[in-house]
């Protein structure tokens, strides 16, 4: 068998941030025609390594060789000139430009000094056709789903004559079908001899797609392995640095919480024009209710109505048996409802504020501007939650934007726990965070229900995680509730059936 050609060699890469050694003597080798996964917990150095490779950060030591030649990209643009392109988790294209413009921005084909629109559109169509996407390239990008946008981003990256394509959490906002479509494209690129670096938190996807995996932990290289010869638990053990038996123990689920007979919140036929149709929902104290369904099925919309981000236009919501008009978040918060939103970066963290500020924010908002929480008390509260949720920070004054995704999520959860809620709504609390933290958050949801009698609404795209934690699953489809599964009925098969069955309606 012919040895695959080595495309990229990173040797002894060091990267030091003030006070932190983000990468220490990390080696990484990428061959042509392979899909190579970078794995590790948050803060392990995956994105730092990628950013060093793409010239976002200067490196503090080590060499990078591309096809045997040493390179030192200083900006992402230079990296692109070498043929290294990145597609990020968040699509960073311009929503208000056309698809073709997005693909050719900065390198538009010109004729007599003016942009040659015809050629540009034709080329865009041809390029997308190679990836089996047939869309109107003259329409603005926001006409298309996130999945299509992602593929357009890939098309663009590939067209900039990429030899190395880096996919950073590309599937985190895609559903199953879209993910498969993306994988097909990635496999095709692999067959063309490209080297692909795939970063994902979804173990399943890594096993489905990748040839090799390089594991990092705390900025150090743990090793590179053939995916086929590494079991899942072994991989997790390497990522979190514990031995196999400890991981097996972690894998065991917390026993589910038994709901009490008291209903905390009852939603009767609630709806909102354009986003939700007639949803019935009863949430008991000590109950973990899951909202299942595909992206855009109405899960988040339901949660947002309960929290007053939008107002219901139909139906009624009763809290503790009393009808309540939830017109804004503050009304919901006064009734001890808390909501950790889906998109951590956009609607969760206040990036440039400290961990302390972020934790006390909702509490302070509840108290009002004039009832200032004294600094000493703020510090006390922040420290308590940092300890309780094991948030990894250098100190409480660290800016929250410098934390890893999982720790940011914990800060948001801390923010809401600080308000001592009776209903905690967690919308995709584990998206884009590492396995260790994932299982911590799942367990926490169950424990809060068990020990504090809290009602919890858990929303997730990962069926597995819902069936582990919830005693009741409300299945949503096309902005409607299609089924409610209780106790023993709670399993992914029934959810799938409910989603598929809802078709006939």
């Amino acid at each position, binding site marked *: 068998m012919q040895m695959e050609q080595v495309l990229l060699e990173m040797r002894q890469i060091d990267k030091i941030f003030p006070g932190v050694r983000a990468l220490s003597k990390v080696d990484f080798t990428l061959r042509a025609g392979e899909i190579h996964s970078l794995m590790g917990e948050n803060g392990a150095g995956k994105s730092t390594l990628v950013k060093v490779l793409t010239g976002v950060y200067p490196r503090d030591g080590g060499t990078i060789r591309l096809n045997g030649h040493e390179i030192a990209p*200083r900006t992402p643009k230079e990296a692109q*000139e*070498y043929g290294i392109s990145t597609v990020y988790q968040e699509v960073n294209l311009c929503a208000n430009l056309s698809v073709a413009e997005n693909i050719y921005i900065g390198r538009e084909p010109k004729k007599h000094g003016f942009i040659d629109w015809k050629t540009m559109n034709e080329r865009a169509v041809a390029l997308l056709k190679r990836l089996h996407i047939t869309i109107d390239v003259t329409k603005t990008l926001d006409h298309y789903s996130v999945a299509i946008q992602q593929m357009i981003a890939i098309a663009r990256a590939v067209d900039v004559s990429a030899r190395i394509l880096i996919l950073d959490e590309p599937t985190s906002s895609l559903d199953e079908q879209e993910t498969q479509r993306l994988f097909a494209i990635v496999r095709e690129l692999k067959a063309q001899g490209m080297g692909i670096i795939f970063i994902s938190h979804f173990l399943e996807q890594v096993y489905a797609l990748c040839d090799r995996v390089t594991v990092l932990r705390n900025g150090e290289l743990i090793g590179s392995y053939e995916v086929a010869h590494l079991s899942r638990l072994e991989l997790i053990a390497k990522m979190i640095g514990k031995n196999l038996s400890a991981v097996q123990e972690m894998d065991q689920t917390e026993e589910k919480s038994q709901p009490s007979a008291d209903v905390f919140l009852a939603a009767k036929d609630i709806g909102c024009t354009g986003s939700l149709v007639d949803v019935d929902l009863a949430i008991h104290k000590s109950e973990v209710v899951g909202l299942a369904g595909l992206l855009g099925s109405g899960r988040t919309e339901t949660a947002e109505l309960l929290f007053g981000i939008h107002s219901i236009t139909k139906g009624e919501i009763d809290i503790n048996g009393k009808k309540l008009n939830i017109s804004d*978040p*503050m009304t919901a918060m006064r009734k001890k409802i808390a909501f950790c*939103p889906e998109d951590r970066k956009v609607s969760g963290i*206040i990036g440039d504020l400290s961990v302390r500020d972020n934790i006390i924010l909702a509490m302070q908002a509840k108290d009002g*501007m004039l009832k200032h929480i004294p600094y000493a008390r703020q510090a006390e509260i922040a420290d308590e939650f940092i300890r309780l949720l094991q948030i990894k920070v250098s100190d409480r004054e660290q800016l929250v934007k410098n934390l890893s995704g999982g720790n940011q999520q914990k800060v948001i959860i801390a923010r809401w726990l600080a308000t001592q809620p009776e209903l905690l709504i967690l919308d995709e609390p584990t998206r884009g965070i590492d396995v260790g933290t994932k299982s911590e958050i799942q367990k926490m949801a169950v424990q809060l229900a068990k020990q504090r009698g809290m009602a919890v609404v858990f929303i997730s795209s990962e069926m597995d995680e819902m069936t582990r934690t919830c005693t009741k699953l409300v299945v949503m489809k096309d902005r409607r509730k299609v089924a409610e599964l209780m106790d023993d009925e709670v399993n992914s098969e029934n959810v799938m059936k409910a989603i598929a069955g809802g078709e006939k309606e």
Partner: protein
Amino acid sequence: MNWKRITSSSLFLPLLALFALLLFNVIFVDGFLSIQMTDDGRLYGRLIDILNRSSSLIILSLGMTFVIATSGIDISVGAVVAISAAVVCTLIGGRGDGVAEHPMALAILAAVAIGVLCGIWNGFLVARLKIQAVVATLILMTAGRGIAQLLTAGQIITVYYKPFSYISGTIPGNVLPTNIFIAAAMVLLVAFIMKKTSIGLFVQAVGINATASKYAGISVSLVLFVVYAFSGFCAGVSGLIESSLIRAADANNAGLNMEMDAILAVALGGTLLSGGKFYIGGSVIGAITIQTLTTTMYALGIASDQLPVIKAIAVVILCLIQSKKCQALVASWKDNRHGGNPGKAVEKA
């Protein structure tokens, strides 16, 4: 001494710029530092003059700091200064015998109230109607001087009522002009509010991420409303000082271009125009710096019509000193030759 801690302080660069300017003055302007006492017991000198003249800009930049921190902007403050000046002068009246037509306290109250009202209008446009801040405040910026003209019936009203001049002058028996105390009181008021309420935190949160603030339960529109109203309040107070300085209401020229100076003061003070973290102390120093610059130019005998050019050059230099990019450039100047040459490797490969 912890040098690193001092240089990384948010006030370090604004102070450095101010000191550089003061040093220039000490060297090139005769008697810059001298402060004398007049026969009637008032202190007199260029430094006092700078503080006297900068007080209205300091007050404006306080309000502007909060507005900018919410990632907004208020370009109407100059016009609001003119309205406030028109109100106070019209109410006191331009009687040649030096008698006030209405009590001065009432006139002052009315002028400040009009300022707040203008701020509330801006707040309504920005917070409720969600009009972009520049556009929303542009309305009052252009219409404001017309309103001031209406109030003064197109005349420049000169006030002969003696106590009116005390606002920007010295009350007999006092050593310093009153407006310095007014500015100091405003700064202290803001410092007190910052210390005792959570407005500062909310303003920053809204400026950094308005969506997340909403999800955290903060009433974003209330915060916006409050900052614009406060900016109007500051403009109202500034209007008193500006009109008292010349003892007249000049609808065309009172507070002219002061909104730009206020924005500049905030920027010099280290607050980013994109919003978020803000530095009240920095803005105050920024305002003093701008006034020092003007005073310097006059002291050097530069004609007032050339002033803007010189000012622009000085501002560019001051901004460069403070620019992070520029600092980084200087810092990386030495090791800039490190690293490979992109393009070459691609050709070889």
